């Protein structure tokens, strides 16, 4: 493992069984993640983007081993955690935390906010004495921009943006190295989304955090990321650093995705071409043969229908497309 890498994922596969009937007989497999490889550098923001069903969330959950892995390896800080048991994972979980999309569903409505933020400290036996524990909670609330006198309130008394701040405070309570943000700003109103994005970027600078950022909003991804991986139906089609990916997208799917994002500028919009993509994402249950994007690709070749494109690396770019063979 390279010294700069915090995480290395190699040929990760997560296949779910499809069962049927009373006896839950297995009738097939659903290859949600099918051969995904990437590295995350320490201190960077690495984004996984793609449309629903592309496997971005499943990939993230596997990194935390919250999802059984079918095959492949996951290395965290030079430690192969692929086959770790739950107890072996505990010290790892201290270093990898998660912020979810829905700040309503991820906070226990019966717990006070201070106690929610302090829960990871208690669970991992790091609470210390009462005074130290309370001081830490106050500190965390300050860091994420919450008033410290709100610690005794319940989640329903907070707005969506404030709740997301609570989730972030909880995620940084144990001084983690890596935070997985699964659509962490997607459910927020525009004006609040900007506040939370700024907060995430500030925290990264102050605490030296690494983010695995999962999102479907490409404008947000461009703003926050250092490197971006584009996923389609369980596979990575392109990885590149931010500027390369957004100024010179290579894979036809990346190009299509970017052309579909409407820009908040009518003059710019008038000069843009119509989106390049047709149809919808097919079901993961019966993925197309060869390159999984070929039925929707405007440039597909004969061999795209039969041969799976290999991942090719050139510089920092990884690409899986027959057009560049």
């Amino acid at each position, binding site marked *: 493992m390279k010294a700069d890498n915090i995480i290395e994922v190699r040929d990760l596969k997560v296949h779910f069984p499809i069962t049927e009937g009373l006896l839950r007989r297995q009738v097939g497999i659903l290859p949600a993640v099918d051969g995904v490889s990437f590295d995350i550098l320490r201190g960077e923001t690495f984004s996984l983007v793609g*449309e*629903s069903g592309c496997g971005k969330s499943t990939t993230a959950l596997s990194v935390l081993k919250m999802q059984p892995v079918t095959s492949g390896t996951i290395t965290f800080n030079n430690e192969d955690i692929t086959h770790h048991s739950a107890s072996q994972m505990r010290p790892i979980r201290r270093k990898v935390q998660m912020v979810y999309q829905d700040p309503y569903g991820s906070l226990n409505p019966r717990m006070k906010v201070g106690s929610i933020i302090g829960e990871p400290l208690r669970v991992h036996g790091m609470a210390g004495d009462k005074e130290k524990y309370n001081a830490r909670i106050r500190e965390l609330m300050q860091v994420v921009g919450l008033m410290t006198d709100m610690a005794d309130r319940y989640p329903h008394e907070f*707005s969506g*943006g*404030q709740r997301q701040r609570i989730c972030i405070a909880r995620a940084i309570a144990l001084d983690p190295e890596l935070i997985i943000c699964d659509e962490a700003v997607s459910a927020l*109103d*525009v*004006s*609040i*989304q*900007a*506040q939370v*994005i*700024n907060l995430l*970027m500030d925290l990264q600078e102050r605490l030296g955090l690494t983010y695995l950022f999962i999102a*479907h909003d*490409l*404008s*947000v991804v*461009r*703003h*926050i*990321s250092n490197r971006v991986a584009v996923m389609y139906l369980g596979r990575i089609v392109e990885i590149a650093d*931010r*500027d390369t990916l*957004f100024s010179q997208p290579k894979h036809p799917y990346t190009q*299509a*995705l*970017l*052309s*579909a*994002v*409407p*820009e*908040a*500028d*009518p*003059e*710019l*919009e008038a000069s843009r071409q*119509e*989106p390049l*993509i*047709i149809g*919808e*994402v097919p079901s993961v249950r019966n993925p197309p043969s060869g390159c999984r994007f070929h039925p929707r690709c405007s440039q597909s070749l004969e061999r795209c229908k039969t041969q799976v494109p290999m991942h090719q690396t050139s510089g920092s770019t990884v690409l899986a497309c027959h057009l560049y063979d």
Partner: protein
Amino acid sequence: MMDPLLSISNLSVNFKTERGNVQALDGVSLEVNEGETLAIVGESGSGKSVTALSVLGLLGDSGGVSGGDIEFAGESLVNASDEHRREIRGNQIAMIFQEPMSSLNPVLTIGKQVAEPIWQHRNKSWKDAICEAGKLLELVSIPDAQERLGDYPHQFSGGMRQRVMIAMALACQPKLIIADEPTTALDVTVQAQILSLLKNLTTELNSSLVIITHDLGVVARYANRVAVMYGGRIVETASAAELYRNPQHPYTVGLMNSIPTLHGKPGARLNTIIGQPPDLSNLPSGCSFHPRCPFAKPQCMQSKPKLEEIFPNHFRACFGYEG
């Protein structure tokens, strides 16, 4: 000048809730001209959906119009009988909702659901209506449309269901289509296809389209004119080009500055609007944006600014900000 197709004047809407009276709309005035696409933008709770629902008379038991009027093609809708509203709804004004799954009946076939408004409003026999439904599904680019008439909604994907909703909305060639966050639940590549389809079909029919959205990119791509809502009031309206080039209300300016874009400077701090959107059951006094406004003056806390024309066809409700 031609009379507008839809004219909302000084409309106020209240909801009775457990937490007391909630004023969802407070003196909203809005016009939609024939053939134009108007976008209503705002964050959650700004009143954009309630505006649409009151046009259709779908406020439910707890909500009611407490003042103002809605005129459609020269006719008042506020005092119309239920029967008359039903006549207009679906026939002359159609609505497309955000969630196509919960808007379609899961136990009726797609064909029956699309045929129903044709049979109901256009005096066609059921057989003709079904035939027409097949043509409509072809129009919204559903592959093998005729064969799929007998399918149920769960056999369609999210984008296909939204295409069905569009087919139903177009069934009676309405003069006005209101689409409430029509693509928020869809993936971005599907969103682009659905919105282009909607825009092209309404242009062909010369219908007016009202798109309700929170996405300023969608507005820029598809709207002729924009109304920005905040706290149950319209704070600014202008043509789309004018609004983006020359926003005049501090809220609009704040909103535009707070979104990351594909051409902006990545990694920079985003400008934000401080604070939280207002609670409608407890709105701030005066201009409800004043607690979040960097330019607020004492006057803003005391009285509500009226919508005034500050440039030709560019209106804003603000006392003092110089853009």
